[in-house]
């Protein structure tokens, strides 16, 4: 009898703890474990838009974490601010068998300001779960509910939301009132995603999506991860009612509601502007003068509060404090130009140096596709001028890799339109390295180098002139890290901001650059612009690859050798031409065989290539890398 009682008690205890066998590790299909650090068992988002000024987003996310690296896929967090409320957040943790082991209640979530480093103030905050796993695998069931009156922005749905994570089931549903309406667009869909939508109810389900492993040079994941973009036809933003549907209308709405009355300036500032441009006839020249004034007098400080999330601070306020974020500074520049009778257009863009990202021209949405603002200035009978108003040092009409070559949303008084920004392609991104250097009998070198850069390569280097002396020296030691014991004797910069050309003149020396072996002295002839990077090898590459930026480097080095040495051998000239670029080197004896002229050029072409071509590209870079290390051998004259 007693035994029975104990067994009974044990069973009761077992039952007292919730157990959900559905979440046990063993129930995961083996194909979902391959290449995965975590398995999303269920990711379910229900969006309700019962009225134009009401949105409720309910999320349930169940993730089984397989190892330490999988912790980051839990996503047990919720962002909120004044107008965006969070409630009912909770997380329950299960062990590998699916037995509940812990519960994190709303009050135990950490509540912190969600401000990034460059922001002075923002009212956005985040609640997140802090949990120390005691075992792997384990499963977290996270639920949250978010409510807002601002309905303009419905998050895109990623059926698979990262590398190294697989998905058992992903459900996305939007129910909406007829007065709101919805637009949606599918990207990179496959047969595993099923559309179950009906009137007033947008609904998608995907099951068993395998984990994808990241591979070097993979294109932006947006371009091949299945994703759904959604936008309400009619929306509310802080009391302003607008509608999506076409870029013209959204743009018109933004102009009328958010921009029109923000350009007023004080009389004294107006006078100042007029004085600045008086006597100047050329419109472009006027723009240039005003842009320079903005650059010299303002700085970037980000403050995000309430409607400030999308509306610029008034020009008159920026004029008073002389700082602002991208919206404020762009609007300020626009206001100053207006005083000089020049019309300029506030322009929204998705800015990113890497993973350049476009607005989808065919899917007009409110703000969902952009994160930054620049200024577009149309000039009669000429190409438009583009201004980056947050930088104090960017040359006039130069966008750099932050915003070049992509669709942007230009907002004019008549409405919005999509335009592509100018692109810097392949040969535009140019670097020339010219050097004269001498090797002595100990292998030490000394020389003069001139580096000239244009296009995006200019963008990579021109900031040097703003750096402190000690940082400049550090930068060069890093730039030429292959040269040990490097000593910089002199450097001189000239920055031609009109033609966007940066020139560096450097004088340097380094001991033991060459190596001595008995009577011989060996050294790598390409001392100052060696490109030996070879992309990683994959035993079995799965993804296509993309070269996002092309460039052209040209070099000319004159190498002088010591008096008592003769040249025993030097590398052969070489020409390699492939789909991905061109490489050539040539060497020529000069000055009675006491010097060698080395010429090199490397062109890498922008492009998207299938995975089958990867080995071929890698082979090209290997050949280049090998040639870059080729040496000159000197031998002591007997």
């Amino acid at each position, binding site marked *: 009898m007693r035994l029975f009682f104990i067994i009974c008690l044990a069973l009761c205890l077992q039952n007292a703890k919730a157990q959900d066998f559905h979440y046990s590790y063993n129930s995961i299909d083996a194909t979902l474990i391959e290449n995965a650090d975590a398995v999303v068992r269920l990711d379910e988002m229900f969006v309700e838009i019962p009225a134009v000024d009401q949105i409720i987003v309910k999320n349930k996310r169940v993730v089984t974490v397989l190892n330490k690296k999988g912790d980051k896929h839990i996503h047990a967090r919720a962002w909120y601010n004044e107008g965006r409320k969070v409630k009912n957040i909770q997380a329950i943790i299960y062990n590998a068998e699916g037995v509940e082991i*812990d519960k994190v209640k709303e009050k135990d979530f950490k509540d912190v*300001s969600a401000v990034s480093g460059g922001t002075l*103030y923002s009212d956005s905050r985040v609640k997140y779960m802090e949990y120390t796993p005691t075992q792997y695998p384990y499963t977290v069931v996270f639920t949250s509910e978010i409510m807002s009156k601002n309905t303009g922005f419905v998050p895109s749905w990623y059926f698979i939301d990262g590398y190294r994570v697989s998905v058992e089931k992903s459900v996305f549903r939007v129910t909406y009132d007829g007065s709101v309406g919805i637009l949606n667009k599918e990207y990179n869909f496959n047969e595993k995603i099923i559309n179950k939508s009906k009137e007033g109810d947008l609904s998608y389900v995907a099951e068993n999506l395998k984990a994808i492993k990241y591979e070097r040079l993979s294109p932006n994941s947006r371009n091949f991860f299945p994703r759904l973009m959604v936008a309400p036809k009619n929306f509310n933003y802080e009391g302003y009612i607008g509608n999506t549907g076409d870029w013209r209308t959204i743009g018109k709405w933004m102009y009328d509601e958010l921009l029109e009355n923000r350009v007023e300036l004080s009389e004294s500032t107006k006078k100042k502007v007029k004085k600045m441009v008086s006597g100047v006839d050329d419109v472009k020249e006027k723009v240039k003068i005003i842009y320079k004034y903005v650059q010299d007098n303002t700085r970037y400080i980000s403050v995000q509060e309430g409607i400030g999330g999308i509306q610029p601070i008034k020009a008159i306020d920026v004029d008073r404090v002389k*700082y602002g974020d991208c919206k404020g500074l762009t609007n300020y520049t626009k206001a100053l130009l207006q005083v000089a009778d020049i019309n300029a257009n506030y322009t929204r863009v998705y800015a990113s140096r890497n993973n350049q990202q476009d607005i989808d021209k065919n899917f007009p949405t409110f703000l969902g596709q952009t994160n930054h603002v620049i200024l577009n200035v149309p000039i009669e009978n000429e190409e438009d001028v583009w201004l980056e108003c947050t930088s104090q040092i960017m040359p006039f009409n130069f966008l750099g890799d932050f915003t070049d070559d992509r669709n942007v949303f230009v907002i004019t008084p008549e409405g919005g339109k999509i335009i592509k920004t100018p692109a810097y392609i392949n040969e535009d991104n140019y670097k020339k390295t010219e050097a004269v250097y001498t090797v002595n009998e100990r292998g030490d070198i000394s020389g003069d180098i001139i580096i000239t850069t244009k296009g995006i390569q200019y963008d990579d280097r021109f900031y040097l002139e703003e750096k402190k002396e000690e940082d400049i020296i*550090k930068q060069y030691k890093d730039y030429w890290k292959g040269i*040990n014991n490097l000593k910089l004797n002199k450097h001189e910069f000239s920055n031609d901001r009109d033609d966007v050309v940066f020139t560096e003149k450097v004088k340097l020396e380094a001991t033991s650059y060459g190596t001595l072996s008995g009577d011989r002295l060996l050294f790598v002839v390409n001392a100052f612009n060696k490109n030996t990077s070879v992309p990683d*090898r994959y035993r079995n590459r799965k993804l296509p690859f993309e070269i996002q930026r092309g460039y052209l480097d040209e070099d000319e080095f004159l190498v002088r050798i010591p008096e008592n040495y003769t040249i025993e051998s030097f590398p052969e000239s070489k020409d390699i031409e492939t789909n991905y670029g061109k490489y050539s080197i040539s060497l020529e004896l000069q000055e009675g065989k006491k010097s060698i002229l080395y010429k090199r050029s490397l062109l890498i072409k922008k492009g998207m290539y299938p995975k089958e071509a990867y080995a071929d590209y890698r082979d090209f870079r290997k050949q280049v890398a090998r040639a870059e290390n080729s*040496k000159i*051998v000197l031998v002591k004259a007997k």
Partner: protein
Amino acid sequence: MNNSIKLLGFFLLVSYGLTAQNVKFGKVSKEELLETKYEKDTTASALVLYRNLSLNYNYSQNTGFDVVTNVRERIKIYNKEGFRYATIRERLYKASSEEESISGLKAYSYNIENNEIVKSKLKGSDVFKENVSKYYKEEKFTMPNVKEGTVIEYEYQIHSPFAYSIDEIFLQYDIPIKKQEIRIATPEYFSFKPNMKGYLLVIPKQSRKSDKIIFKSKTRNNNVTSYDYNTQDYIVDVVEYNMNNVPALKEEPFVNNMNNYRSSVNYELQYVQFPRQTMETYTTTWESVVKKIYESDNFGGQLKLTGYFKKPLVEIIKNASSLEEKLGVIFFHVQGHMNWNKYYGKYADLGVKKAYKEKTGSVADINLMLVAMLREVGIDANPVLVSTRSHGVPMFPTNEGFNYVIAAAKIGDNVILMDASNKYTKPNLLATRALNWFGRLVKKDGTSYAISTFPKKLSREICMMQLNLNENGDLEGKMRKTYTDYNAYVFRNKNGSTSEDDYLENLENENNGMEISNYEIENKAFIGKPIMEKFDVSIESQADVIGDKIYFSPLFFNTKKENPFKLEERNYPIDFTFPWQEKYTVNITIPDGYKVESIPESIKLGLEDNIGKFVYNIVAKGNQLQIVVDLKVNSAIIPAQNYLGIKEFYKKVIEKETEKVVLSKI
């Protein structure tokens, strides 16, 4: 602690303004505005023209003493890099019922326009307040109208109800300070000891003055209210730090925490004594600091709890007979059972009992539990208070000096240090974050003594290679690597949760073009043992084939090519974390049809004070070459005065390792 003082040892001279000149708020001169660089440091992006910090105790009958700190700074901005000094953030502490606050903010920017001084005022609406966490909020603002050449000036008062503590006052910034006047006035009731740190020689000026408190008391008698006034006189101790031309603190690489070297003064409360009350003593010496920590329920109290582990402990030690064995099984039990929740701290976070039950806890939960268990089985075990590398070196006895606790055990004459909060530590191998100068070992009676946490044993990385070189310069062969102690610890922390495929792919890609097969690893998870890797390797173009000769550096892809020490000079010690040895033994078979024409010379190099040693030995015999290269650094920390020596040492090591063997066609 003596040792640390010696290592940090030399002082920079700054001059001291003896007479305080009156720098009036708002009186910014044209000269200040027109200046384009600071003569004494032309690389400075901004300069503090004048700084005044004055701290006073105020008495209020309702709330007692509070601390008012008046802050005033005038800063010149030279260039765009200096713009960030135009943004001011003041961190304010909160406790359950009281919090610090700011008042009286005045701030202006000054610019020259058309040869006129133009002043712009900071508006109240441009000041932001933010609740950062449970413990503090932040008040911040950025100045209006800032451009290259602007001078900004601001002033405000911080009110703190926390009269028992004064925040550390920095005497040195990342930008130079032309003139600063710092004045700390404390009433005799609070006895503080100022502790100086850093490289600046600071001479405080001390004085005393008197002050009084007037107590007002009200009595009501038959509808007549009368007031009585009582006066209490007391002495105020004033310390002034008046300094001119304070240099900027400049970053250097291989320093674990720059703040260790920043000059500052830290006021440590020693005792509080109000009239007609007994003296309350606070920390004064390391002994008393430690005693106070020890007496806390969240420290010493945790060591007394034993009930929660009594039962499991019987099971854990059932097969262990000697004390050493018991120590081993208990350590590995705690390490395996517990999961660190990423919190440091010397006090228990969840409490040992709850932590043990939930299998998760802070460093203190885990290591105090370890000490208690070791004591339970009769081992002489004690907690050791330490400061982590990121926390800095505790140079003066303060409660805040320690932020971490480890365990120590004495068996026979051996002292064993332990940290069970990381999954890859072992007895006498601590988590690297805890390797920071000295800790304080606390005995059962609350007394304590200093104990070094620096590892003395060399952590080794030993590599043996058997390689065949072909006439194209390609290599193929076998490799065997062994990692001991900290090298194994680092390896396990880095690769512990990486799959073998990913690890190998990484390894191949780090050594461009390498292909690895037949990979085997031993003791990857066996914490007590060294890690051993064995694999076949092939890698292309490792030698230059030029004409009828072949040139190569005999360590091939293991050759050191870059000197980590690039700067011309250095002020601060070099921190290697632990002493180490790297040894390569390589046997090379040269291609058929070639003979060895020349080989580098064998050498031995030493560093002064036996800090480091380098041996390079090469022998050629027929078609075989054998190379042994052995590099050692015997000390975790190397004083700055050895910098040039070690830089030169590395230079020679690299020159030697990159030297070529020359083969020629027969």
